[in-house]
């Protein structure tokens, strides 16, 4: 079991990452709280020894993604919510950022995941394939399709590799 000091450090370092992944997957704040508790409790009890920060970050992304997917599977979730409910911080964003966020969050989940991991976390298609347990070609397809949809929603043609 990890120490309190180690756990607090991880919360400080990875909370934002976990929060963003929750936003990609989930539709309400209560579920986000559940995921935070699940992910960090798993971290506290995990015997995994991380080789470096990259390894640790990848662990958090994978565990949070899986926890979100499990939560989604366990409930019937068709309720749509406004972006303000989904990400209260969006209200304080400049209009451009807010539009982008709305556009990304309006994509189907599989595209949201790919967009977040590629454009924000900087993972390549093979790395995303490993995290999401998807074929690399499928990831390429998802990314291309997501770019196309974002282009349609936001205009412009700058969503290239």
């Amino acid at each position, binding site marked *: 079991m990890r120490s309190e000091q180690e756990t607090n450090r991880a919360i400080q370092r990875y909370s934002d990452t976990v929060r963003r992944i929750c936003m990609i997957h989930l539709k309400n704040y209560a579920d986000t709280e559940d995921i935070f508790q699940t992910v960090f409790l798993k971290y506290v009890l995990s015997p995994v020894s991380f080789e470096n920060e990259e390894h640790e970050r990848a662990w958090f992304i994978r565990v949070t993604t899986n926890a979100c997917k499990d939560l989604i599977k366990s409930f019937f979730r068709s309720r749509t919510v406004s972006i303000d409910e989904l990400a209260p911080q969006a209200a304080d964003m400049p209009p451009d950022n807010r539009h982008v966020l709305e556009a*990304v969050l309006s994509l189907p989940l599989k595209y949201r995941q790919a967009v977040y991991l590629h454009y924000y976390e900087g993972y390549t298609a093979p790395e995303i394939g490993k995290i999401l347990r998807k074929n690399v070609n499928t990831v390429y397809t998802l990314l291309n399709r997501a770019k196309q949809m974002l282009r349609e929603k936001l205009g412009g043609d700058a969503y290239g590799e």
Partner: protein
Amino acid sequence: MENNIIKDTFDRIHAEESLKSGTKEFLAVKTAKAHRHRTAQKLLPALICVLLIFMGFGGYKLYFTETSVISIDINPSVELGVNRFNKVISLEGYNEDGRALAASLDIQFMDYENALEKIFSSSDVAEYLSEGEIMSVTVVSCGAGGGQSGNIEEYVRKYTEGSGSTYCYSATQEEVEGAHECGLSYGKYMAFLKLKSLSPDTTPQDVQDMTMREIRDLISSLTDGAASGEITSGGQGNGHGSENSSGNGGHRHGRDENK
């Protein structure tokens, strides 16, 4: 629109402080429970080990504590330690012949009845007795072994009944406590005490290599062939010197029953 705007947008998303503090509180409760559970889990095997050690140590001590000692003296002097389960847990010779006899016997952990039968029927003992020697069997009770000592004495008396050359005595541990310091077996020490009461100059060394027959004859001579019946009958006739000290705790040295 740049790709960077996606990164910039997500960069603006942060975990709320309430989310972090709520998670910390949740983990504090959970880990305290897990810690208590783990502590109990860790302690349980240790407690079981301690219990087993105590049980093992207690059992060991119970098994390897002598409750009676059987001292067999002819010239060879040997002592058998018997535990509360009637098993022979020690066998020791108290003179050269005794050590040789002890080395030739494989009676460790036998029931005392089988062990005594083996000793009484051994060729060495038979040889000594055929040469006119006498055998003294002294049963010493240790602590709470009184009942057991009585049973052993009863067994010896029955087994050797009619042999005419075996005498059985009983004693308490207090009576014979100086025996081993003198290098004497309990049985020979009792004979020594009797001899010393008649001849105060006698030392343990004087009797150490004497046969029980010789000691007995010496005591007989010192009591002037007394008609008291003590020792003088010499045990070589029909005497089956069975004695019982229970009650007064004294050693009735060689008072033959003259059946």
